[in-house]
């Protein structure tokens, strides 16, 4: 009898002890996809935030690639234990925003928590991608980049190319000279074949990728990138692929090493490649804005962003949301943003951080991190260059890539390939529209 009372009492005591720890610290889960140096940055941000106050503790967890992280988050949501903050790449935006019950919009979060928040303080080229057509910010931009042209200055000099090419015809000429000078396997190339040749290409030339402002204004958007301009560009690539003046480098960025190894002296990829280029390229290199066709009126327009943003998941307690809101305020701090930008090469998300970096003279000695900012702010964004938002975008890119590959391999003409990419993509958009209602 006495023993039973004793064990009951211990059990009770243990329960009470577990339920009320000495300091009530609210834990906030942050799932992300950052590797290498960027992983360290994530951990340091969380540690700094945790040290700055004692009510909340942000716990970052690496979940694999962008696609892995998003899938893990979706699966966790279905199982009822989603993280508080989830890093989602830009192309997952439509999927996230259509899941109305699964997410907590950032503007709502900040308002509910009573945190000071001014959407206008952020760079519109970046927040536009993550906001509704009314300008309400849905997710919090974290790491943003854009596409730039990486240039191997040593090799260009050797091949007798005096100026860094600005237009596509100049790039083709330079590539031919490079090829003649010994770059037999690659005159120029790009990573992310669809991001370069469809998405950025369209925005940079101020032509639509799809109707409804590239899907930003509604899921009933219809693809339209099979115009004569797109066909002409793809045809140029097909022609140049034959003798490897242009050489295809795959759907993703695994082939960025072709620039670092010196094989391709002109290479279009993300501005986020900077950290890796610094570490691997043993030659004088720089970045330049993407090329354009000079006969297109209004080109170049402005580029669109890539990268990822932080989504807040739905169904959490008000106190937890308060913590998340405080964390976002912490991230938006001007000094912190400026430092983050200069260290990681990612874009600053606030105007103040950009101005501060500019005023400090940082770009004078480091022009490379400013290239994507110059592209993004080149002109006031139009319907065609604010961004894009398509459901199933991850798979859509695979589908477009398939068609471009078929064209480059000579199985289809440029027109046939782009027509097929558009019609297959539209079928996918209609399926998404039905589920996103």
């Amino acid at each position, binding site marked *: 009898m006495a023993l039973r009372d004793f064990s009951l009492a211990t059990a009770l005591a243990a329960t009470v002890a577990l339920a009320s720890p000495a300091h009530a610290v609210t834990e906030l889960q942050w799932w992300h996809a950052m590797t290498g140096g960027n992983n360290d940055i994530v951990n340091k941000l969380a540690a700094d935030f945790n040290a700055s106050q004692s009510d909340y503790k942000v716990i970052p967890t690496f979940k694999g690639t962008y696609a892995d992280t998003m899938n893990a988050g979706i699966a966790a949501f279905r199982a009822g234990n989603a993280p508080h903050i989830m890093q989602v790449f830009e192309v997952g935006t439509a999927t996230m925003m*259509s*899941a109305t019950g699964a997410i907590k919009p950032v503007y709502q979060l900040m308002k509910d928590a009573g945190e000071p928040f001014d959407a206008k303080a952020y760079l519109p080229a970046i927040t536009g991608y993550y906001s509704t057509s009314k300008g309400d910010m849905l997710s919090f931009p974290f790491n943003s980049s854009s596409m730039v042209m990486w240039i191997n200055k040593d090799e260009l000099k050797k091949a007798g190319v005096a100026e860094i090419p600005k237009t596509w015809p100049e790039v083709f000429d330079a590539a031919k000279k490079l090829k003649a000078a010994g770059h037999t396997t690659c005159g120029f190339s790009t990573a992310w074949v669809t991001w370069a040749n469809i998405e950025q290409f369209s925005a940079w030339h101020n032509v639509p990728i799809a109707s409804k402002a590239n899907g930003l204004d509604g899921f009933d958007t219809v693809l339209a990138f099979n115009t004569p301009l797109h066909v002409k560009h793809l045809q140029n690539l097909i022609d140049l692929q034959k003798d490897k003046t242009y050489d295809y480098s795959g759907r993703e960025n695994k082939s960025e090493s072709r620039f670092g190894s010196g094989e391709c002296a002109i290479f279009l990829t993300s501005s986020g490649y900077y950290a890796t280029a610094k570490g691997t390229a043993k030659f004088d290199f720089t970045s330049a804005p993407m090329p354009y066709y000079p006969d297109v009126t209004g080109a170049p327009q402005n580029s669109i962003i890539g990268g990822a943003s932080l989504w807040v998941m739905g169904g959490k307690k008000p106190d937890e949301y308060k913590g998340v809101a405080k964390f976002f305020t912490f991230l938006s701090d001007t000094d912190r943003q400026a430092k983050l930008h200069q260290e990681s090469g990612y874009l600053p998300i606030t105007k103040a951080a950009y101005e501060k970096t500019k005023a400090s003279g940082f770009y004078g000695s480091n022009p490379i991190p400013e290239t994507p900012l110059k592209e993004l702010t080149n002109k006031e964004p139009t319907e065609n260059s604010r961004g894009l938002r398509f459901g199933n975008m991850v*798979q859509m890119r695979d589908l477009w890539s398939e068609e471009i590959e078929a064209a480059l391999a000579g199985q289809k003409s440029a027109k046939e390939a782009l027509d097929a990419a558009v019609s297959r993509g539209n079928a996918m958009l209609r399926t998404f529209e039905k589920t996103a209602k």
Partner: protein
Amino acid sequence: MEKSVVFNNKLLPYLLLVPQLIITFVFFYWPASQALWQSFLREDAFGLSSEFIGLENYQTLFAQPEYYKAMLTTVVFSTLVAGLSLGIALLFATQADKNLKAASSYKTFMIWPYAVAPAVAGVLWLFMFHPTLGTLAQPLRWLNFDWNPLLNGNHAMALVVMAAVWKQISYNFLFFLAGLQSIPKSVLEAGAIDGAGPLRRFWTITFPLLSPTTFFLLVVNIVYVFFDTFGIIDAVTGGGPAGATTTLVYKVFADGRTGGDLGGSAAQSVVLMIIVIALTAVQFRYVERKVQY
């Protein structure tokens, strides 16, 4: 006097079967029935909305020319992988069965690749044959061979077949070796005394006596290529170029995971399940007749 033991308890046999039945039900029938049910639904990725749409997923599926292309790719891929991995493993096993010095370390080395995860195996082969970085792609280049798995579908197919075969050889090797060691030496010696050469002994004695193992491996290998190879394909080619290495199971994976289209993906796995059940049935009905136990 009859001495056999009789259990009168009618319940006991079922009780003894329960653990196995539970495992079969939880891990096979339940997921399979879930897939079947899901194939009639249209759901968003988060599972917030779900709508019964009957056979629409199947109609969409069979209206896609890409789906038939994936079927054809699967036939090519599975024939190559099953044929090559069985053939090469049999060759290795017959060699390892001889009286060799260091036979045991040779056997151990042969088994190692089986411990490598499919995606890792894929990455290994990808790096060896990477057009720019690959240690094995460089010699091809010196021979003026335009090796380009990024654009050439046949090159990409060759690459995934190599990785998938390499991965499966160890498993097949192990079973073939065990099968070979269980063939009585006296039978082979009798053949030798009768004047049959090594090749003839192999085809008339060893191969028929090995047929139960071969048949078992054939079934297992078909299941392997149909279900277990998407990790390799995802790591090496991502189904490309232009869908040249998109097999049926890779398409299930890509549509369900990357595309978040659970209904369509479920419909595909139901079709795939039917195909494999049919194939296995055919194997048991027709191929097994030739097996000599």
